[in-house]
């Protein structure tokens, strides 16, 4: 049985990673009717920290305290980089809109300024990032001032070690100490998982018992670091309860992916697009796309009964290899849905550097789709493949987001720019919602 939807959507977003979610969110906020296809599981690998840009150029491993300065330098030196195509004001607007939507969905972030913040990782190293969840912001301050601080972890929680953090910090933070606690009710469980503890802490009684376990250990501590598991759906409430119960600033430290902050981010983004009226097909995969002059018809599989979605524009946010937007065989990288040409090294020999840890990264990691100034992927002749097909996020060529630490920035800013372009194309210079 094939069911054909009669509605024609303004936008069909293919992909539900960070870029797909951002595109769906921005499209809905601009009043476009939007359908999103794809599984959001990729976001589970996120740390909750929203990187904009902190390392450029890669060869020098130069760290930037001010991401917009880094972007300005990038625009001069690598004009083909997708982030070099967007002006700073737009990037800032996109980030603010994204973070505001997360805040409304129960996942507040610290106000965005001009500078990157240094955040402790789960192994005690320091990572600069731009958007910091409010539950982690006390850690940024503590890391800057290094007062007496208590780091807590739990027996059986293998993904997080407070001892390792303190040991890595060593002399750089002499007043840091750690304590390993028995999480209430888990005495006989050999292995614990952060997501389950996060859910357990949403129970008021378990939360109170945990706070009571920490209280006698405070000593001279002026801040307390926990693995990021202080609540899941109600993390604001749980975090506030810990700060109130302990009478000190409490901060979370991101755990190894897949982590609780990743799960929170996924839940918040799903809620954000759902409340803005985005139709979702998150169990479906795209089988085919047929373009005609005005619309694209997208065939879905794994959708109950099969379905075809008709949309006036398509945003390809299928990601790179992990998201399977790009697939590689022994010698060639191809785009998985439409078969668009992929910018890539001419032969496999050039995919990788000799040194695996080469700071400049590998050519294969800069493979992807080439686009025009309107975010439309190009065909083999260098022209836009279709006037109503757009591409955003990590599938774009000429960027190595992992090494530049610009993953969220790439996703959010390119989605914002492409959706602005789509709105102009469909409804003229103004937003459909009437905003300039």
């Amino acid at each position, binding site marked *: 049985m094939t069911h054909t939807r009669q509605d024609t959507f303004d936008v069909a977003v293919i992909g539900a990673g960070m870029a797909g979610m951002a595109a769906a969110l921005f499209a809905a906020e601009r009043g476009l009717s939007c359908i999103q296809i794809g*599984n959001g*599981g*990729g976001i*589970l690998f996120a740390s909750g920290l929203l990187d904009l840009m902190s390392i450029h150029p890669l060869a020098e491993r130069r760290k930037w305290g001010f991401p917009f300065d880094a972007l300005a330098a990038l625009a001069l030196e690598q004009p083909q980089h997708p982030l070099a195509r967007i002006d700073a004001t737009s990037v800032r607007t996109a980030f603010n809109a994204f973070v505001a939507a997360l805040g409304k969905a129960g996942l507040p972030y610290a106000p965005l300024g001009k500078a990157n913040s240094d955040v402790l990782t789960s192994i005690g190293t320091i990572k600069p990032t731009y958007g910091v969840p409010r539950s982690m912001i006390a850690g940024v301050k503590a890391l800057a001032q290094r007062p007496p601080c208590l780091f807590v972890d739990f027996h059986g929680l293998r993904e997080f070690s407070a001892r390792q953090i303190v040991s890595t910090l060593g002399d750089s933070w002499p007043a840091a100490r750690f304590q390993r606690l028995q999480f209430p009710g888990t005495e*006989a*469980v050999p292995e614990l*998982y952060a*997501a*389950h503890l996060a*859910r357990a802490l949403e129970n008021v009684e378990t939360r109170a018992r945990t706070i009571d376990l920490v209280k006698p250990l405070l000593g001279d501590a002026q801040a307390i670091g926990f693995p990021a598991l202080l609540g899941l759906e109600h993390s604001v409430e749980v975090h506030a309860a810990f700060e109130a119960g302990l009478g000190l600033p409490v901060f979370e430290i991101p755990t190894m992916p897949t982590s609780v902050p990743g799960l929170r981010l996924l839940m918040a983004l799903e809620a954000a697009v759902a409340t803005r009226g985005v139709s979702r097909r998150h169990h479906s995969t795209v089988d085919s796309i047929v373009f005609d002059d005005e619309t694209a018809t997208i065939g879905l599989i794994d959708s109950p009964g099969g379905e075809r979605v008709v949309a006036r524009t398509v945003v390809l946010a299928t990601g790179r290899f992990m998201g399977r937007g790009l697939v590689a065989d022994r010698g060639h990288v191809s785009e998985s849905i439409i078969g668009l040409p992929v910018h890539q090294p001419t032969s496999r020999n050039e995919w990788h550097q000799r040194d695996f840890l080469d700071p400049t990264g590998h050519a294969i990691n800069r493979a992807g789709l080439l686009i025009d100034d309107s975010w439309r992927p190009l065909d083999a002749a260098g022209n836009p493949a279709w006037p109503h097909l757009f591409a955003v996020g990590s599938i774009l060529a000429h960027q190595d987001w992992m090494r530049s630490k610009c993953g969220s920035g790439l996703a959010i800013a390119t989605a914002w720019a492409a959706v602005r372009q789509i709105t102009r194309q469909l409804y003229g210079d103004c937003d459909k919602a009437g905003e300039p």
Partner: protein
Amino acid sequence: MTPALFRIALYGSLAICLLGLLWRVSTWFHLRVGPDACNVTVFQRLITAVRGAVSVTFSRGLVHVLRAFFVDVVFQNRLFAREKLRWLGHQLILTGFTGLVLVHALASVLAGKLSPGYQPTLDPYMFLRNLAGVMVFVGIAMVFAGRRRQQTGFPQSRRPIDAIFVALLGTILVSGFLLEAHKIASPRAFYRMTDQFIGTTDPEELKPLRALWASEFGVAFDDMGDGIEPAVIAEGRELHGDACASCHAKPTSAFISYTAAKVLAPLSGALDEARADTWLLYLHLFACFIGLALLPFSRFFHAVADPVSLLVNGAAREREFSSAGRASRRALALDACVHCGLCDSSCSVGPLARHLGNPALLPSHKIVATGAHARRRLLSHGIGPDALLVSEGAFQCTDCGRCTTRCPVGLDLADLWEAGRGDLAIAGLPAPSQWVQARSAFAWAESLDSRSTPDAPSAPLASDRRTFSHCVQCQTCTNVCPVVAHSIDTEHGVDLTPQKVMNLLRLGMLDLTLGSRMVWDCATCYQCQENCPEGVRVTDVMCELRGLAYHRLGSVRNPGGPS
């Protein structure tokens, strides 16, 4: 038939019927279904029933019982709400049969006493008798037609005695109609009556009466000749008025028998020769007596058990039963089941029953097995293939409760299934999840080492490496798993997390997963599969592993059993 023989047959069959009823009713108080039924004595169950009956009779509960009587028992409201055609058929049988029993069979004690002028050959009795007979016939046909319509893919659970009983019912109806038809057409019966009431059997002398009875009462004289003058008939009518009319209406109102009499007319002489009236009467009466004697032992005992069950439901309403009350109610349910099969056609696992080829999954078959086990017949020769099929049926039930909702006699089937599973577990046939978890996953894997089970079902997902090729061991499945979250210790909690099960499969160590508690405790909530960023069908794999384990570990546990 001599009065003595009649009495012996009547009282004999009545005695068997009553003793049978007593025995069947006694099983309501001594058959044990469910582990909790073993904790109460027969005496406690009797006392509970009597006390319950008394307390309801003298309380406002009586209103509900009366309501249940009229709405559920008399009107058959539950059946009416579910199957209109079968309800109509059932009501036709019930009304027709009751009519026949009251007006016809018990004529000498009821109609004869209540209405002084009663004669079976007068109207409306003649008409009503035919009407009631037709109602029963049509009703049976409708009930059978209703049954044919709902095919479950399996023959319905039936016992030989039920077929015999239906045959007896048919015999009673057919022989009754034939007997009446024959008596209408029989010249011999005519002369017996004239001998008794006019005092002559001389054909010439009775010519006017014969003329009238031949033309208007259907008697098939073979020596009447043609062309009877109206004057002769008028003369016969006068004689008829004096001697016959007070007892005989025109038999045309016996619309079935009269039609049959016309068909049989050419044979009436031969039938008279063969003394058909005598043996048809014997056939009719003996079929009645045998039917009466068999009633308590056949499915038609539901005519007694159902009203009791419905009245008990009416009395109990939403109240909780004590364990003594529950025990009796379950035993009563075994008798009250009509085996109508409505439950089967709504059973959630019906498709699974067809897939497995095991009718023991279906409620109407399960209730027979539950009764057999309660009567110690299921495992009388130990755990055989049949018992394993019954156990499979019992534990595949999802407790969705649709059978209970749908049952036209309001049986609490869900309670019966739970009790039955308890009994099976005690008898050495626990749920697969229980017997699998009695050993560790390692112990099972070791016992599987030396065994090959060629007839085990294929595991297309678990044996295809593409199923796991995208797994990055990211732990999302474990993070979202409620079973892992509620695991309180290693003794009773999960041994392997979903992610570890997937990893073992990736490593080709499938045997080690089969007895794992994760596989068997999986709630099939599909959280893992829904959240897997790589689209691995984690839950589907778990289900497949369970199916495989049920067969492979089952062949270790019950060598030679069906697998």
